[in-house]
């Protein structure tokens, strides 16, 4: 099947099998390997992308379902090559990542969350974060990073 999808502002048109997962499409068809796959059953959140601005699990959608939609991945966050945006910078400053495997999904979830709630409480951050699993950090520094980004007006 033909699929036309905009990823990080670039239009892509590909011939794909109907069963191809969106996560595999992003990673292996168009080479955006920043989106990670942790469970392929929609629990861990590592593959979270923005689908028309809303966070969504790329492992729970077929590529063909993204037809005509606007997808954003972690590769879209940095303002320029070699730079970090305010949320990414807050993650580095707070030591909010260790292995970094879950991080792209968390950044995308938090990007949407902060757009909706620019001045969240810690409790709100924890709720918003609870759909993303991190096995390394114990979450504390991630929560700190999101609050720091909010404070800096990310």
């Amino acid at each position: 099947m033909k699929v036309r999808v905009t990823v990080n502002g670039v239009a892509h048109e590909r011939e794909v099998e109907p069963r191809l997962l969106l996560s595999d499409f992003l990673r292996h068809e168009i080479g955006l390997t920043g989106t990670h796959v942790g469970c392929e059953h929609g629990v861990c959140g590592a593959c979270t992308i923005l689908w028309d601005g809303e966070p969504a699990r790329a492992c729970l959608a077929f590529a063909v379902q993204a037809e005509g939609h606007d997808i954003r991945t972690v590769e879209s966050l940095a303002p320029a090559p070699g730079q970090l945006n305010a949320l990414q910078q807050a993650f580095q400053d707070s030591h909010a990542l260790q292995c970094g495997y879950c991080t792209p999904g968390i950044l995308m979830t938090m990007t949407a969350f902060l757009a909706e709630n620019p001045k969240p409480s810690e409790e709100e951050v924890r709720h918003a974060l609870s759909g993303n699993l991190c096995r390394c950090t114990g979450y504390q520094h991630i929560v700190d990073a999101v609050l720091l980004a909010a404070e800096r007006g990310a």
Partner: protein
Amino acid sequence: MTHSFGKPLTRNEDPRLLRGEALFVDDVELPGLLHVAFLRSPHAHARLLSVDLTAARARSGVIAAYAAEDLGDYWKPGPLLVPPPPVPGMVFHQCCQVPLVKDKARHVGEPVAMVVAESRYIAEDALADIVVEWEVLDAVGDLEAALQPGSPLVHDHLGVNVAARVHQHRGDYTAAAKAAALVVKRRFTYDRGASIPMETRGVVAQWDPRADRLTVWDTTQAPVVIRNGLAAMLGLSERQVRVVAPNIGGGFGPKMMMFYPEEVLVPWAAMRLGRPVKWIEDRLEHFFATTHERSQIHDAEIALDASGRILGVKDVFLHDNGAYDPYGLTLPLNSQCTLLGCYLVPAYDSVFTAVFTNRTLVTPYRGAGRQHGVFVMERLLDIAARELGLDRNEIRRRNFIPADAFPYDQGVIYQDFSRLSYDSGNYAPILEKALDAIGYDRFVQETQPKARAEGRALGIGVVCYVEGTGIGPYEGAKIQVQGSGKVSLATGIGSQGQGHATAFAQVVAEQLGVDIRDVEVTTGDTDQFYWGVGTFASRGAVVAGSATHEAAKVVRQKILKTAARHFECAEEDLVLADGKVHVVGVPDHSITLGALAGLANPMRGAVTPGTEPGLEATSYFGPAGGATASGAHAMIVEVDPLTLRPTILDYVVVHDCGTVINPLILAGQIQGGVAQGIGNAFFEQLHWDEQGQLMNASLADYLLPTALDVPRMRLDHTVTPSPLNPLGVKGAGEAGAIPVGALFAQALEDALDLPAKGIEILEMPLSPSRLWEITNGG
């Protein structure tokens, strides 16, 4: 120059990870890449009668399919990674895992056949084409049942399911028990859990016939060991094999297993087919095929005098090995040794039996058996304190190894086969700091009585532990000043999120006066550094960190020598700072490290005899013994009386891992460890049915703690440097996870006032439903 060693600096590795640019194994794309799927045993125990791959091979897009017989001489049981310890009278039966099932499957998920296809989708389609005939056998999963006569046998030729038996003792426990005012005896159980790194395992292999070399990208914690083993198995020289462990999405121990069947088979297939081959484990496979940890049953007793001083401890325990035992006895040895904890135990008698079961293999996972020992000892002390009418903290104080007793020989053989000797420590101040921080007295005297009067179930827990870290044999590091003025560092260990690219850079920067952002660290690429062992047992900072320090000192000397020649002055008159060297008092007249590197590699003239070109050094470090870290955790918990769901209201960690290289990274290690400890204590348990089927093999059913479950923690440190390495550091990777089970048990008992009801918590992990059963007499 500003010092970077000991500072909470942000990490060098972060920007690439944050931008999604870092390379993980599944990110490796190669022209002509083929994809693998494995057919795995659906039975825990079954004789394999036949495998028919005809239809699978005929499917369009399938390149090859293999069963055990197709491997020919390549089919061999895996190597024994860790030989049995030199303990007199020890029994050990070596039964290592096989690449593909040949005679019978011994656990669910054991690979039976391998399909290589143009895509993973096609490879998985082809699995459904494979016809397998099985004779299903009774399975055994229960440790005690496995030792009964007539039990199904995991390895028929042994005639028993005993994998090993090790008896260690010091002093005379029988006499101690006779002399005791109190002997407490209990049975403790600790059930299975899994490490669940967010990245599953994966292997990509490429054979280059022109270079006559094999490159393997592997999610391993031990790339050098994998390189050596693959070379031997495939009939290659080590130099022909490059193993790269790029960014690894968490390891926690199970990625230290060598060799997983897939690791043996993917490179073989790549060479045989002449095309690159990739296998990425899916999460379902991960639950069955990546190693687990934790099942043990302890029958333990402690003998004390009337003042609460320990006279002796006796422990008889069973350890679940799973179906094979390639990792030797590291786990039960850790349990056996770590049980002694922070305490003077004049008489110790411990015997364990490691048992084969029809379950996934068991190898070290963060804590690696230490938490079992801590759980048993801390629980025994809690119970003894109650029976003696002593405060639970006081019984610990009375038994701490005193600060002037170090180095302290525990008189037993540790996992590194040296005598367990604590290098340094000072336990009492750690406990006092933890009690102060959590507000123990105020809680016990005011908060808890008030809460109870309001019908709220609040409890406090305080436990102590030691962690053996930083064991040998060795690691190495190679440092080079580049022409760019940047400094490169390569070491053989891999990184799975520990921040090596920052912590080791800080060690380099301290000697070479450079910004840590100018230190380029490569870990886990066997072409960059040839020698090494691996990232395990909280040893990276201690062993590779010390090797880095030694190499940096040599490079510093070379820099100063070259600069002294350049400035025609004495080395003592030079200042090395900010990536430059200048003569004291003349900071404007300086030479950069890059320029010095050029001077050290002249195009004309001679490199004088006894010297080498370049500003480069390679050093190795092998510690005489492990460095023993220690700590105390304290927690206040509230339990919902209806749902029995605990909420952690406060959590304090006081930790002593010697000299700290980077407090920010250390905090991350501790917090992450505690989070895993909380999971292991209250959320995570692998559930099996009687046929040995794993019932909760998904992240929807095997619950990891979320941001709502892990509390904000407060950390504090004491610093007792290790005398065994030049930096004075001790490992910190596992400390967060080790005492949490013991802490939960104590705090939950306290919250629910269980001792007053004659109820004790003697098992891990718990859950609300299990806690309900326990509190209702189950």
